[in-house]
Structure formats: C-alpha cells, structure tokens
C-alpha cells in the first residue's frame, strides 16, 4: 500500500521534518512552533527570542506572513567533497556567479553581508543578512535583519553521499514578501517557478564545481530573425 498525501502530512509534520533536516533538537522545534524557518534557525543559533524581539515581529504576525510566504527546498548531488563546496559557497560574494537573480553580495564582516537581487521591471531589492549558524563543511544558515525589502532566511547543508558519490547539497529558502505592490512584484519574482529557480541555481553550482564552467547557449548563432 502506498500512503496518500494526507497520510504523509499527518505522519511527518513539516515542523518535525525541518527540525531533523537542520539537525537540531528541542530548540529547533521550539523555533518552528513559532511558525517559520527563521524561527527554527534562530533556535538553532540559540538566540531566537532575542533576535525575534529585534525584528519587531510577533509570533502571530509571522505565522500569518508565513502562509503567504514562499518556501523552497531543493537538493542536488555534486561529485566533489563537502569541504570544497562549503568553501566556495561561504564566499558569498561569488554566489551571483550561479544564482541568477542575485545582482551582488557584499560581505561586511564575518557575520553580516549586504545582498542585492534583481526584481521585475529593472528594479532591485536589497537586504542585510546575518549568518545565524555556521558549521564548517556542513551547514550555513542565514536570515535577513530588520529593514529588509524582503524578509528571507535559509540554509545550505552539505552531506557526504554514499559510495563516493560526492556530496548532497540541500538548500532551503523562505521568503516572506511584504504586502503591497512591491510585495506582489517580489512574490512574482520568486513565486512563478521558485522550485525551478532554486533547482537551476543549484544545477549551475554543480556545473561550476564539477565542470569548471556553466553550460550555456547564450550568444550562439541561430537563423532566428
């Protein structure tokens, strides 16, 4: 017998699954009960409540936002050791090489960086993000700080794949766009095919790491007028 989607949802709640994904225990669960990936990451970092106060968001509000938020999860296996992948990823300023919607990342210090992403109609959105958890060669988690155009958080996890198959790289992202016109635009940007966008970003990362370059046909000739 196979289980129905409903079965799956009840037997493995999102909360528990996320807790196990990020690899934390009770603290993560505590964070997730507050309703978001951000909460879970904060809990993992051990500073959840303090941080929460700083962003000025109440748990209830955040839970409401989350319903409109976009959560994406994507995994790819890369034929390289985890430490090499971790090192490349950790150099955030290089991320726009394979993350197509990112315009630039500027690293301020060991914790904080400034991110600019392309938005529709030639506009851009910006935010500061903090590293909330950093486990060498295993996990990097980040979250935007107060004042972000779009509240977002996420983590990337590097796990050795079995039998010398390289490293499984999992990315989980959550965006909570604000209301209003800009919110709608951002939702559109990240919302049309967010899974595919994250998947394509990861695939480009894999190409860069394995093949040394990103496969493309941009700039090749054709007989199109």
């Amino acid at each position, binding site marked *: 017998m196979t289980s129905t989607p409903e079965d799956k949802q009840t037997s493995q709640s999102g909360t528990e699954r996320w807790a196990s994904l990020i690899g934390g225990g009770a603290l993560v669960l505590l964070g997730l009960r507050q309703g978001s990936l951000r909460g879970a990451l904060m809990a993992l970092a051990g500073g959840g409540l303090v941080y929460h106060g700083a962003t000025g968001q109440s748990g209830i509000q955040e839970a409401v936002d989350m319903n409109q938020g976009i959560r994406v999860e994507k995994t790819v296996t890369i*034929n390289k050791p985890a430490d090499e992948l971790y090192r490349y990823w950790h150099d955030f300023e290089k991320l726009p090489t394979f993350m197509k919607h990112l315009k630039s990342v500027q690293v301020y210090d060991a914790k904080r960086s400034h991110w600019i992403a392309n938005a529709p109609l030639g506009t851009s959105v910006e935010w500061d993000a903090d590293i909330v958890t950093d486990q060498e060669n295993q996990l990097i988690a980040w979250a935007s700080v107060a004042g972000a155009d779009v509240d977002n958080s996420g983590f990337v996890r590097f796990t050795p794949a079995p039998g010398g*198959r390289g490293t499984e790289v999992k990315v989980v992202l959550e965006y909570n766009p604000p209301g209003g016109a800009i919110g709608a635009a951002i939702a559109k940007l990240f919302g049309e095919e967010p899974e595919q966008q994250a998947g394509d970003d990861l695939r480009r990362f894999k*190409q860069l790491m394995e*093949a*040394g370059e990103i496969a*493309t046909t941009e700039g090749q*000739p*054709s007989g199109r007028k």
Partner: protein
Amino acid sequence: MKAVCWHGAKDVRVDTVPDPKIINPRDAIVKITSTAICGSDLHLYDGFIPTMQSGDILGHEFMGEVVELGSAVKNVQVGDRVVVPFTISCGNCFFCKKDLWSLCDNSNPNAWMAEKLMGHSPAGLFGYSHMMGGYAGGQAEYARVPFADVGLFKIPDGLTDEQVLFLTDIFPTGYMAAENCNIQPGDIVAIWGCGPVGQFAIRSAYMLGAERVIAIDRVPERLQMAKAGKAEVINYEEVDPGEALKEMTGGRGPDACMDAVGMEAHGTGPDSFYDQVKQAVRLETDRPTALRQVIVACRKGGSVSIPGVYGGFLDKIPMGAAMNKALTFKSGQTHVHRYLRPLLERIQNGEIDPSFVVTHIMPMEQAPQGYEIFKHKKDNCIKVVLKP
C-alpha cells in the same frame, strides 16, 4: 556563415547566420569539412521532436579543423583535424566518470525541460531541440564545441572524412546497440531497420561474435547493403517477420532483437495503421511498430536492444510478453566518447571502412534536397554527407 536551419516541419533552409564564437573557457570552434544528415534528424524534419524553434541550426554528425580554442583547452591545437561526438559531455561528473557519457549531468542548459518529461536530464546534444540543450548544430560552416578538451577527437593522417565521420554517431551507435545485445557464442541477432545505424549494427554484431545476423526492412537497396554485410534479410512487406524469424531460428526466436527503427516505424498490420493515425493527430508521440515486433519475436530470456530514438509515450507495448519472457532491455543515447578510440582502431586495422554507407555527397547548399531524398528514400538514398 551558412548553416542549415530548421523552420518547421519539412522546412529546412540554408540561412546566413552569425559565426559562432568562444563563450566558455572549455569551448573550441571547428571549421566543418564534412557533416551528415542522421536518420534521427528526420524526426526533427518531420516535426516529431518537441521544443524545436524556428531558426535552430541542425546537425550532430560533423568533423573538421580546429580554428579557435578557449583558454582552458590545452590538449588540442588549432589546425588539428577532429571528429566531434554528438553527445556533449563534461568529463567530470558521476556519469562521465562511469563512461556513461550520454548521461552527462552538466551539459544541458535546459535540463529542467527534460526533467519535466523524463524525471532526469540526459546530456546535451548538438542540434537536437531545446529540451536536449538547444545547442547550435554542425550542418554549418563552423560550430562551437563545448567541453572541447574531452569532446574533440584527433584523427590521424591517411583516412578520408567519409571513413571517420561516422565515429561521431552512427558507427558507435550501431556498435553500442550490438554490445547491448549481450552476444554469446552461437547467438542469432535480429535487427529491425537497415538504415545507417542498422548497417553498422549488423557489422558490429559480427565483430562481437554473432553466429548469424538477420536484418529486417522493406527497402530493396537497404536489404542489399545488409546482405553485403553478411546479414540474412527479411522483407517485412513480403513475409511476416515474426513467423519468418521463428522458422529461421529453429522455433527458438532470435537470442537478441534490436530496434534500429525508432519512433517513426512503418509496418503492415493494423497496429501500424493505428500508430500512423494516432501520431498524425498527436495522440501518440511515437509509432513503436518495430518495438512491438521485437518484443514478441525475441526468444525467452533474450536481449532487447533499442538504439532507435523515441521521444515520449508509447502505446500498446506488449509488456506482458516482455515480463513473462524475462527479456532484458538495454537502450540509451550512445556513449560516443567511449567508442572513439577502439572503433578508430578497427577502421585503421581495415576491419571496417565506414564509408560503405554513403550514397550521396552534396554541397551543403543542397541540404533541403538532401533531407527530402533521405526522408523519402529516393534515388536509393541511405546516407547523405554535406560539404559546407
């Protein structure tokens, strides 16, 4: 430059397009001296492969001279004479390392399209739809070759273009299809389709130790060429191939059966008519007439090898026969890189001269005519080579 461009079903034109340029560090530009039309190009010509766009440059069997190299290509030089595998492979991923070059993880920029249809994406291919990478093909004066450091194969002096050109696809494709037959001493191999791949499969099956090869087609000159390759032949318009094969194999059925026909098969039975109608109104992507016969004809516990190209979803496949007769299926786009050196050696040793398959050599300007005569098998056409 001039290039053969697809503009819709049964509409190919020789257009003037921009010259290709180096885009990535591992690229090379090849000035093409010979380029062939493949049977699988006819699936594009007939409009049965999805995600083609008007203006796409066709062609995936080409060779020539290296004229420009990206900064990361160190193992070939400008001026080298090379053949180019039709599969584009990075050489570094899990699949390339396992010698499964046509499954390269990193060469399809449009992998998401293939993933939607097939779950995972195979390697990018030259000139073979956007789902398969959208790469400009080699029926042109010049082509850009990605991952040129693993994709270009140098050809020694003393061999003509026609002797080595088919290393790019149909010789390795026929050879791999014969390998996929798992040929054991005493085995009889039946091959549906005496087009160029079928012809190379016949000869490869003997190289790999087949006792007898039986080839099935309906076109007299193709059956004749199969005979020249020491195959026994069946004209399926004259006799039922299933019955004939049983009689020719002591009632056992062929030990291995190969579908070298693919998605646009012809046949004589009601199922063939069913496929013609369904495919014509786009209720079916492929016409698997040959594949059905292959499955039913194959002896119990035998091997089914499928080099024929399929695009999507097939109707009325006798899976009951396949399962209950415990058949082994092997298929796939060809892992061309794997076969380049060993098959070049066979050519150099004089075991085979692949130029036997060529019936037409014409200037590339005549490509539209080449497609037309190849499609309709006019003028005894079996293989067309174009000269840019």
